[in-house]
């Protein structure tokens, strides 16, 4: 009876556009939620729990429950982990289902451009630690989240030299994958001239081309108990999921540069947990969808999730391994980096499409997918499996 198995039963989204589309984020959330329910052939009234990111200002979980006409709701949950929340939404949904506390859990993320940056920086007396980045790092020139990833890069580079050439290749690998997906925003290759232009440099190894493309988007995932819908062949099994704050837990995301545990990180702890729970090895993963706010972030996560040996990710790029027909498919939709920033949540939709054989940039016979959130602060990850029914 318990624990019940949890599956991704439905996914839905509205069209991705560049920022400034003028669409209401509230309405986009309602629309993507209904689309996920339609995809699962589940009436929205049957949703009995909602999980969202705290920093999603589109619509409160309470308002969404009322608007969708949910018959009753057993839990309204908000996850405070920034980008680390992406797979945590699914992990919490799964926990509710495994415990028999819910049967159909709606998870969503809506973003309009860079509103999320403002929302994460807003004064909030209920969360006083958010100022620790400013209070302790600002005087030494900390500039924002890019700083934390640039600091990570320097530590990686000290262990395994990673050239700017490799970051250029990473950016273009993601764009090449995006180009195979309708509606992705950054689909043209970057030229060497524009990328290596000195005035393009920003922070650490990065140029302005090494960051995600902003978007207006909204996407939703309906997590249900296995067998809840009438379409078992479209259910994607969540065989493992986990969260972790990792070694040397700090009070706020930006403080990771003052820790010294690298390459151990919140994501390496998540990886350990999910491979153990799933009972599979990294070589069994057919497609990965890993957080990619920068061209380096995803490379580090490929190694963190042990999808190649330490120091080897640059040679994967040389071999075009990230392509759907490559040796190590990664972010086949172009990721947030090139398709449009979703705080990592849209990776779950791509992983689901891959495992249903419904992806535009399809990995042949994909059976297992790993989805990973960022390695800076408390984070999450999951292993998904194609339905065997």
């Amino acid at each position, binding site marked *: 009876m318990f624990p019940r198995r949890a599956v991704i039963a439905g996914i839905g989204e509205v069209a991705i556009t560049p920022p400034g589309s003028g669409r209401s984020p509230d309405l986009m959330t309602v629309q993507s939620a209904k689309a996920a329910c339609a995809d699962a052939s589940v009436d929205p009234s049957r949703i009995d729990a909602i999980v969202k990111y705290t920093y999603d200002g589109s619509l409160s979980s309470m308002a969404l429950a009322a608007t969708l006409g949910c018959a009753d709701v057993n839990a309204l949950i908000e996850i405070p982990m920034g980008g680390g929340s992406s797979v945590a939404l699914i992990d919490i949904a799964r926990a509710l289902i495994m415990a028999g506390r819910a049967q159909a859990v709606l998870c969503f993320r809506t973003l309009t451009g*860079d509103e999320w*940056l403002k929302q994460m920086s807003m004064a909030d007396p209920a969360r*006083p*630690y958010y*100022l*620790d980045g400013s*209070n*302790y*790092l*600002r*005087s*030494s*020139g*900390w*500039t*924002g*989240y*890019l*700083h934390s990833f*640039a*600091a*990570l890069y*320097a*530590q990686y*580079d*000290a262990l395994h030299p990673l050239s700017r050439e490799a970051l250029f290749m990473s950016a273009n690998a993601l764009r090449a994958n995006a180009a195979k997906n309708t509606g992705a925003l950054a689909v043209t290759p970057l030229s060497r001239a524009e990328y290596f232009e000195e*005035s393009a*440099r*920003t*922070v*650490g190894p990065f140029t*302005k081309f090494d*960051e995600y493309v*902003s978007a207006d988007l909204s996407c939703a995932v309906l997590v249900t108990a296995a067998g809840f819908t009438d379409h078992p062949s479209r259910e994607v099994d969540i065989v493992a999921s986990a969260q972790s704050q990792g070694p040397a*837990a*700090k*009070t706020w995301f930006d*403080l990771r*540069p*003052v*820790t*010294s545990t*690298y390459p151990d990180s919140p994501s390496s702890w998540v990886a350990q947990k999910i491979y153990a729970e799933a009972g599979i090895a990294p070589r069994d993963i057919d497609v990965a969808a890993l957080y990619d706010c920068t061209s380096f972030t995803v490379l580090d996560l490929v190694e963190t999730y042990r999808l190649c040996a330490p120091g080897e990710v640059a040679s994967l790029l040389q071999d075009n391994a990230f392509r759907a027909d490559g040796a190590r498919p990664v972010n086949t939709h172009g990721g947030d980096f090139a398709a449009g920033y979703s705080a990592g949540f849209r990776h779950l939709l791509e992983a689901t499409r891959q495992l249903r054989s419904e992806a535009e940039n399809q990995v042949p016979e994909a059976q297992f997918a790993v989805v990973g959130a960022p390695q800076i602060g408390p984070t999450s990850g999951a292993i998904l499996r194609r339905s065997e029914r």
Partner: protein
Amino acid sequence: MQSTDPLVLRQCDLQRGVQGLADDFNAAVRSNRVPIAQRCDDCGTAQFPPMLSCPVCRSQELSWVSCGNTGTVGTFVTVHTSEATPSMSIPRRLRALVPYTSVYVAPDAVPSVRVAALMIGPQQAQLRVGSAVAFDVTDDLGLLVNIVV
């Protein structure tokens, strides 16, 4: 129990919460003109940034300690542009100093932490993870580090 370690400066003021602790930290740096970390009086665990309780032994007896004069670079980030973008904003008083580098340093006196310091000037080209640096607390730019040659 008051520590007799000569590195100890004074106890932290925890009574005003998180922001009060940050204010107390900055006051201690200004008045002592040394890099500072927090250390538990009972178990000796050091923290940066400081917290309201020792995460190892849960003691509330916490003190500011001097981090001494030198350290080793754990990681660093060089800022190349003074233009703001949505994902980055440069502290106003540092804009004229670009390129500058934020350096995260493990003090030789308290190697279990890293403190945050600023590096300016041509020496940035020599900076590496593992570089030996010397601390310098300045009035206008706060905690600086310079490469030890």
